[in-house]
């Protein structure tokens, strides 16, 4: 038991050293993305911080749900218990988070969702509209293909709404605008993983001697598809599109290796969210009383070799 208490003491020091000084009167904001360490989630945070840095009394705490809705739910409960003032949430699932969001707002916590509005009504949702992003990709790719050809899709894991919506939009565009473009295959990459996207692309290249376009529902997987196509020496004949517009992909677009992506200015998104929050917080407005969730859509921008130049370096994430 002596040893136990000794260890305990050590732990005590460790923990306390970690525990930052808790300012007395602060706004505590919880940032709950689908997972940390992703370019877009980091960019949103950075975008928000560009605003929050001006307010010393704002403390932002991020959480790491590792793509698990049940963890997001549990984090929100915790945020409620800890009496945070606001939550910025990129929901893994629209239904799964509804109950929690409802609870949070009823406790006077402002909830702003990113990219995906949960079913329950909440203060605001700032979206890069997934469906229209997919639609945009479909439209642009169709143009590049001259309205005909074989196209394959690298899907997100089944049930991941973000990816699913983009795919929906894409399929919709193809169906409506290009009757001569055939969607020949669709395979989903477990965990949005790049190496798996490569494997899937390989099997596409294998099964289709004539493949003209590939839509990977995020840039990461598009890069994977690119690697595979390049290795097979068929990159020239295949227009690979992604969605998000992360920095590395934009560079590949400039090099002409990737055909394009639906670029979304995550910094701007983050900044917008932060400004809305500060507005309500400083005026102590609390969650909005409006009957409907205020949805702000940031129109996606089709970044291709031609247009990518228009994206200034400071907006590249």
């Amino acid at each position, binding site marked *: 038991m002596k040893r136990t208490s000794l260890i305990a003491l050590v732990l005590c020091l460790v923990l306390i050293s970690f525990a930052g000084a808790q300012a007395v009167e602060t706004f505590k904001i919880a940032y709950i993305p689908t997972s940390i360490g992703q370019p877009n989630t980091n960019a949103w945070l950075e975008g928000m911080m560009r605003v929050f840095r001006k307010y010393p009394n704002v403390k932002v705490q991020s959480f790491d749900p590792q793509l698990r809705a049940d963890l997001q739910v549990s984090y929100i409960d915790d945020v409620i218990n800890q009496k945070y003032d606001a939550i910025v949430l990129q929901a893994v699932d629209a239904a799964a988070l509804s109950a929690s969001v409802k609870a949070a707002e009823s406790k006077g916590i402002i909830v702003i969702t990113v990219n995906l509005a949960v079913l329950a009504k909440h203060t605001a949702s700032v979206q890069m509209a997934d469906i229209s992003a997919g639609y945009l990709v479909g439209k642009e790719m169709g143009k590049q293909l001259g309205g005909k050809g074989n196209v394959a899709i690298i899907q997100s894991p089944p049930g991941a709404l973000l990816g699913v919506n983009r795919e929906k939009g894409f399929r919709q565009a193809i169906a409506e605008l290009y009757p001569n473009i055939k969607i020949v295959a669709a395979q989903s990459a477990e965990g949005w993983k790049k190496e798996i996207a490569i*494997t899937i692309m390989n099997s596409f290249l294998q099964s289709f001697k004539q493949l003209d376009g590939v839509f990977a529902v995020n840039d990461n997987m598009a890069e994977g598809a690119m690697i595979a196509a390049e290795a097979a020496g068929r990159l020239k004949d295949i227009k690979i599109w992604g969605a998000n517009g992360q920095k590395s992909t934009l560079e590949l677009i400039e090099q002409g290796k990737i055909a394009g992506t639906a670029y979304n200015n995550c910094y701007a998104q983050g900044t917008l969210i932060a400004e809305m929050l500060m507005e309500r917080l400083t005026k102590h407005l609390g969650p909005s009383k409006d009957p409907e969730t205020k949805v702000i859509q940031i129109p996606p921008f089709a970044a291709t070799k031609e247009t990518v130049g228009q994206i200034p370096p400071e907006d590249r994430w």
Partner: protein
Amino acid sequence: MKRNLLIYEVRLGLVLLVLMAVLTIISPSFLSLTNLSNVIWSVCFIGILSSGAIYPIITGGIDLSLGSLAALSGILVDMFMNRFGINWVVAIVLTVLIGALIGLFNGFIVAKIRVPAFVVTMAAKTYLYGVALVVSNGAMLAILKPKAFIAIGTGRLFNLPNPIYIMLVMVVLSQFLLKQTAFGRKVIAVGANEVAAKLSGIDPDSIRLLSYTLSGATTAIGGVVLASLTQQVFAAAASDIELNVLTALVIGGASLLGGKGSVVGGLLGAMIVAFITNGLNLMNVPAPYHPIVTGSVIILALLMNEGYLVPKKRKKVLGHHQAAA
């Protein structure tokens, strides 16, 4: 033992051939050099990790920290090369050394302090993920240079991707180390009967220590290769890969109670899974059905290996419990 395991691996090989035959019939584009090389390519990462992960398992332990460590290694090698500007060869050596050290640390807690390997390495999985986040500033970093480094993962030799050669070399080395060296034999002995091994002049602790160190080192190599072929590193890069490695090894004849197993079997196991996935992709089977088929085939493969479903007289196999005794 050796003879039995050989038989086991041969049987596994047969299962693989049957599978390939079936796939060729179903989808003609299956049996082509490019496709086969693609499939083998897709098991490279698992193959490389298995070549080291087999050792803790044979000593009756386990290493669940593979995924986090691999990701961390990728991040480290990138940091060395592109943040500190160290020559890529040196950077890789450093990374592998660090991987070995982390493995050694796990091994120390398991062998010397005698904490169950499962808990130790599971905790390691957790905190190494944290370390990876810290080192990478929680960012997903793209590796675009040096070209030589990228070539490791993306280059080709005799029209086959480099990783295949790397994996084959590691697997062969691992198999050789296990079957043809005193060290390997000692590892097996410790797994089979620690007391007897000890009385025969083997020091189980140091054998364990070395096993985990090996596992750490090979995992680091795997991480480097993964980083090079995806040209990108981040903390969650290889999350949960350890389960796939474990599955491969156990299909390959390894027993979680120790004393049994081989990396060649592990590779065959991984390929069985990979071929199924590939076949499903070629046939464009919708995602939900992939795991169903894979799972069923795994169980069928097991049944075959245990001597069921095959006409020849079934061989009595030890159940887990007897094996434990």
